[in-house]
């Protein structure tokens, strides 16, 4: 069972590795404002599944608009 803090760290680190500015990445940040697009979310989904065993469908991903949305859906299902 993954800790929420660990999930948040993995997601935050992933977004930064995709090119988002570290200082802009917080729970309320809109993914579009971070220049995170559908390809980044496909990569993030793959990382989440590998690390936490949570499989996100394209319908799930379509509901993710903020960094917090991504963290919450994984915390809920992990």
């Amino acid at each position, binding site marked *: 069972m993954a800790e929420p803090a660990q999930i948040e760290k993995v997601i935050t680190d992933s977004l930064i590795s995709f090119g988002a500015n570290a200082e802009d990445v917080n729970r309320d940040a809109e993914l579009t404002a971070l220049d995170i697009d559908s*390809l980044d979310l496909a*990569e993030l989904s793959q990382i989440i599944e590998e690390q936490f065993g949570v499989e996100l469908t394209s319908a799930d991903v379509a509901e993710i608009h903020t960094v917090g949305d991504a963290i919450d859906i994984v915390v809920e299902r992990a």
Partner: protein
Amino acid sequence: MVEVVVTGIGAVTPLGIGASTLYERWAAGVCGIEDGEGRCREFTATEHLSVKDARRADRFTQFALVASIEALASAGWDEGLPYEATRIGSIVGTGIGGIGTIEANDLALFEGGPKHVSPLAVPLMMGNAAAAAVSMRHGLKGPCFGTVSACSSGADAIGMAIRAIRYGDAVAVVTGGAEAALTPLSRAAFGALDALSTSGVSRPFDARRDGFVMGEGAGVLVLENGDAARARGARILAVASGYGATADAHHVTAPAPSGEGAAAAIARSLEDAGAQPSDVVYVNAHGTSTPLNDRAETVALKTALGQHAAKVPISSTKSAIGHLLGAAGAVEAIATILALRAKLIPPTLGWAERDGDLDLDYVPDRARALELGDGQRPLAISNSFGFGGHNAVLCLEAR
């Protein structure tokens, strides 16, 4: 006929970053080959591109992007596009495409299964990735595609760009070639063909040559409709005055020993430029350092240029950077233009021993001043030939 001019150039090569770095170091006799490979050791993608742009691009596309940024700046386009975006094309060749991406993802598939293959694999590996990335980076909305003809891909891209502008499909085209194939599979595959130099020395046309030395990099040129370029007051570096392409229809890896396909491409390129063999003041040879190419190319030059072949200086950029495969034709076109403009022909590095009837003037030892007679045009040809029997020749004139 519409004149097509070169207004911008950019390059990433084993000799360093930048078109002038390539030319000046080669002319000074510097060789960018180390440990039997021409690696772009001075290149770090994130020094030129954002993290996002860099990781969205295979190394071959990174090279093309960085070369394109330099080329557009050199054309004076860095403040904005001079023409409507739909009238500017992006045509960039590659021999192989993102082979490093293919190998990394194949390993991930083998070790971890399908779910370990990256969603970025396809956009990075595809052969049109460099053309697409250049289009997106600069907002070019005209004709956009890659050319694939092995080691003549870069020259064929430029040829297609010339045609697109002459035909009116585009007012300008950002064009060239890119390759990044210094990978384990690529080395093993070319090695298995016995095409690579075992000595690790690239010495085109020399009796001791024993295969090509693989290199990597990109060359990008901005081509424009001559009237449009002059109307905007552009600095014109050269005229891309001719392009000739043929196929040997002989063998998948060996050139036709008669050189007839290559000779026909040279002749067609000169005809396209409205030039005679005697107008050629410099030949930038394909000159791979393989036993077969350099012999067939010498025969082809004698056929196409006749008695003039013995008088014209011939040098191979591959002596300084190795063989950049699909980038070679574009990088060498840039080197040719700069040599004509400087009136200084860089040498075929390492040439010292004549090989029988390979008896042309290969400009050994050091750069040589280019003497032009009265009224003589500074006109050169740049040869590119590729596995599959492709022959592509560009005719370039300095301005």
